[in-house]
């Protein structure tokens, strides 16, 4: 599924009072099937709002979203949400549903208004849980599992509807590094094996390097910039958008390459003469 936004912009209009648009420039991008896009930007730049506008949960004030060249407004809600899977941040739930009940909710677009899930729906739920590696937690209450496991369950919830694109809002927050890896690996595998694109809000530059084919960067009072990962995520751009000095790091080991960006401010001062790592000779 190709998802495209043309000249989109948004503001929280309160009836008569019209506030200025929250994005400095109109947003336009195209995401081809199977490709991933990371959205980066400081807090308050409007990343979550952007996700909601892209998917139609909020209405663009100007511009439009196109799904396979069809305007989003014209697509029926049921069909739309079969194809788009929205993964919110994991949060405590009021009622302690079992994990499998939580995941089977994702089958809603396939279940008639007055019906309830059948065996096939639960089988699909278990398949999805298996895909993300937590099928052993199927009968546990969602308030008993860890935050990371719940996040994986929420991803599984979107998988049951055979989506073509996943929308994730900072899924790695609150997770330990191991769970972060599990999620990222799962997403990468989904895009490779099942051609599922994803759009992901993230605060971690190295996640963007790992996962994304293109990056959209926004900040307050800065024009939105979109392009290939290496084009967008440069030290000068990061300085401009995040207002902080970052240095790009590249780590190489055998046939592996990791790229990331780290803030200069967190560097420790050292006495150059005592440095063991520099070899001037």
């Amino acid at each position, binding site marked *: 599924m190709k998802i495209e936004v043309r000249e989109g912009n948004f503001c929280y209009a309160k009836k008569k009072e019209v506030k200025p648009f929250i994005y400095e420039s109109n947003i336009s991008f195209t995401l081809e099937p199977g490709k991933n896009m990371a959205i980066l930007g400081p807090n308050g730049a409007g990343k979550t709002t952007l996700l909601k506008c892209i998917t139609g*949960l909020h209405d663009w004030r100007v511009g439009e979203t196109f799904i396979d060249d069809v305007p989003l407004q014209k697509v029926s809600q049921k069909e739309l949400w079969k194809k788009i899977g929205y993964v*919110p941040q994991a949060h405590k739930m*009021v*009622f302690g549903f079992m994990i499998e009940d939580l995941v089977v*909710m994702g089958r809603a677009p396939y279940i008639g*208004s*007055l019906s309830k899930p059948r065996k096939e729906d639960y089988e699909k739920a278990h398949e999805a849980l298996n895909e993300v590696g937590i099928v052993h937690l199927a009968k546990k209450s969602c308030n008993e599992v860890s935050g990371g496991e719940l996040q994986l369950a929420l991803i599984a919830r979107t998988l049951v509807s055979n989506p073509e694109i996943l929308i994730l809002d900072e899924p790695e927050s609150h997770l330990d590094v191991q769970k972060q890896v599990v999620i990222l690996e799962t997403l990468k595998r989904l895009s490779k094996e099942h051609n599922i694109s994803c759009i992901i809000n993230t605060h971690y530059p190295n996640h963007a390097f790992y996962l994304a084919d293109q990056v959209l960067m926004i900040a307050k009072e800065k024009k939105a910039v979109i392009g290939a990962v290496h084009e967008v995520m440069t030290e000068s751009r990061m300085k401009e958008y995040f207002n902080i000095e970052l240095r790009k790091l590249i780590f190489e080991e055998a046939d592996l390459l990791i790229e990331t960006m780290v803030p200069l401010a967190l560097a420790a001062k050292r006495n150059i003469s005592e440095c063991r790592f520099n070899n001037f000779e």
Partner: protein
Amino acid sequence: MKKWKSILLWVLPLVLAIASLGIGRFEVDFVTVVKILSSHIFPVEETWTQMEYNVVMTVRLPRIILALLIGAGLSISGAAFQGMFANPLVSADILGVAAGAGFGASIGILLFGNGYVTQGFALVFGLAAIVFTYMIGGSGRNMPIFMLVLAGVVTSALFNALISLTKFVADPEEKLPAITYWLMGSLGTASYRDLWTAGPIILVGMFILLALRWRINLLTLPDDEAKSLGINVVRMKWLVIAGATLCTAAAVAVAGIVGWVGLIIPHIARMFVGSNNERVLPMSIALGGAYLLIIDTLARSVTAAEIPLSILTAIVGAPFFAYLLRRTGGSWS
């Protein structure tokens, strides 16, 4: 939950109903009760008096069925609302239906003192209360829950004030005691006519809620999440409100205001079947019906004078709720 336990809980109301047919201020031994009942299916030698027959068929039977229906209706409405509002502390009264229906009935008793009119008014004003609540708080894009709750508070306050006004105007000899007594809830004069008027309405409401019981799970999620699962959130909320309002307004029209049932029973149901509303709603029907039946049987048999229902449900319900709070520490899973 084990299959046989589930079946047991469903059989419970039936068993209790038959047992209650044999309990009351007027002595009818159980064998006679069974004979009277079976005489409608196959010929049985008539060994009972007309009075015994009356007691079983016209005094107790309609009342027992009504108690089951009302207990079930209030409980499933409470469960549905607890799901829709994602809050385990609400009951179907929160949007003002009970207060509106109570006012309708008070006006009916004041002006007409007639059964049909009183019930009709109760229904009409119960529905009017919902419309009122919607007009105040429901016109946002998503019909946000907190707006509905606040609007419901306003509506309840308004109709309760109107009830007080009605009581003020009523004559203290006949009308005022009638209104006050009615407001405390009673099935003391339950008849088949009440059953035929309120019964179908409660059944329709229950049917709507049962049909939606799995989808209510989706309503417990934040609005955007629910939408992202492809459901029309506003329409869902309206359907749930419609179903619960029908049940509650009809119940209030016939039995007055009976509190604590819609609040407590869903919790007990969850203790048995977990949080999945697909199972909680049907279980609430069974438990709610059984509960109100027991309460009503007590109300009409313990003393010669009828004890108002809401007094008993509060005396039983409030301590039990306190116990629940302590035991679960406030977390509901």
